[in-house]
């Protein structure tokens, strides 16, 4: 289908974008890569009055370092994330997860910020951002504010972004020390969304697991951390038994849905299995 008519704005700076959003009327939609928004508009599930296209806001694109932090512009495409040398060096978990997103055509257009702002529970990048303790910089009519990942994801398709606000950049603390990472995604066919996926980052020290960070995709309306497993792994030996034991609590505190792809109890099972696999791989087993 063809989307309903809308007014089109194409700002070139964040300030112009904020003005266009403010002046756009009741129902304004921000267009990033369009790989979630355009399909929804084609199905007429969204029919915004105004679309503000960020494609020409070049300040929102690219990756830079600021001391211990990697700063990723919201409009950096999935393809650019996968090929970026700074991400490969300091946040390889993001690149690994992004490679599993959709297909090469969609990855050429879709953006890191768009995937996070969309906050689909089956989206792969929110759980990664949560596992890496990323921070979100939001710009609005009253200036900028920074929100931690655990506060950014509020509910199903809902983030801390207020009306009139824009996600500008994502700040990801670099992993320093001997970290290993792994994104384990379970889906059925090519270009499919995760039924469940697990993002793991594990720091080893003196033959033990010093710290583990585990993000869960599609185990509730928002991405979640597997806190019980993380606690069980702190100080644990790097053995298959210790990791399997800890992974058994991976679904604690989650509330997965039942849908066409899987029942909730099957998702709980998947979370345990995928956590064991992801942590084992990240720990170098």
């Amino acid at each position, binding site marked *: 289908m*063809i*989307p309903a008519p809308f007014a089109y704005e194409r700002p070139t700076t964040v300030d112009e974008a904020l003005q266009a959003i403010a002046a756009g009327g009741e129902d304004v939609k921000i267009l990033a890569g369009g790989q979630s928004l355009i399909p929804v508009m084609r199905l007429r599930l969204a029919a915004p009055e105004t679309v503000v296209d960020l494609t020409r806001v070049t300040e929102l694109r690219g990756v830079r370092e600021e001391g211990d932090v990697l700063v990723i512009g919201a409009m950096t495409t999935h393809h650019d994330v996968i090929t970026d040398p700074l991400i490969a060096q300091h946040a390889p978990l993001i690149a690994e997860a992004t490679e599993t997103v959709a297909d090469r055509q969609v990855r050429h257009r879709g953006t890191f910020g768009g995937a996070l702002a969309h906050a689909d529970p089956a989206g792969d990048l929110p759980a990664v951002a949560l596992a890496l303790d990323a921070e979100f910089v939001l710009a609005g009519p009253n200036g900028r504010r920074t929100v931690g990942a655990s506060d950014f994801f509020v509910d199903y398709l809902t983030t801390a972004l207020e009306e009139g606000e824009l996600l500008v950049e994502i700040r990801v603390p670099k992993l320093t020390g001997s970290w290993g990472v792994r994104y384990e995604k379970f889906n059925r066919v090519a270009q499919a969304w995760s039924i469940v996926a697990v993002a793991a980052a594990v720091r080893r020290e003196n033959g033990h697991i010093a710290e583990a960070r585990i993000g869960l995709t599609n185990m509730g309306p928002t991405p979640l951390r597997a806190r019980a497993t993380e606690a069980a792994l702190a100080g644990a030996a790097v053995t298959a038994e210790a990791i399997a034991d800890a992974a058994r609590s991976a679904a604690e505190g989650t509330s997965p849905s039942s849908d066409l792809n899987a029942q909730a109890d099957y998702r709980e099972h998947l979370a345990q299995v995928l956590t064991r696999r992801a942590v084992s791989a990240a720990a170098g087993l």
Partner: protein
Amino acid sequence: MTSINVRVDGASYSDDVEPRTLLVHYLRETLGKVGTVVGCDTSNCGACTVHLDGEAVKSCTVFAVQADGSEITTIEGIAGGDGALHPVQKAFHEMHGLQCGYCTPGMIMASIDLLKENPSPSETEIREGIEGNLCRCTGYQNIVRAVQQAAGEMSGATGGQA
């Protein structure tokens, strides 16, 4: 209406389009480039794949206004000036990489994009490279063979030996 300037398959066009016009509809209905087809309503099938500034995209999931100032290549623009088939087109023909042919324009455009980035892909890399393109007929085997053959021919050509 918004006015756009684009280059498509080597020719320049200036047109007024409604912002809601999808790039694929602009190509087909305004420019008559009906080689690029629409196979779904959900951005899944890849039949509409074209190159936008050198990158494969699904032209049903880009607004024509977003292509303003860009260079677009469609399936109609890849053959040589003398009508000689592009090596990937030739390989799909020779390896029988199609049955009904509906997915073929998109398959070829995605494959060219893959081979540009990875000139000698493994079978798995080919399957992953065309994961955004669905074929309801072939079972993919001959499509993969066609891409393998094209990869061989294209790397042979750049290596200077036939």
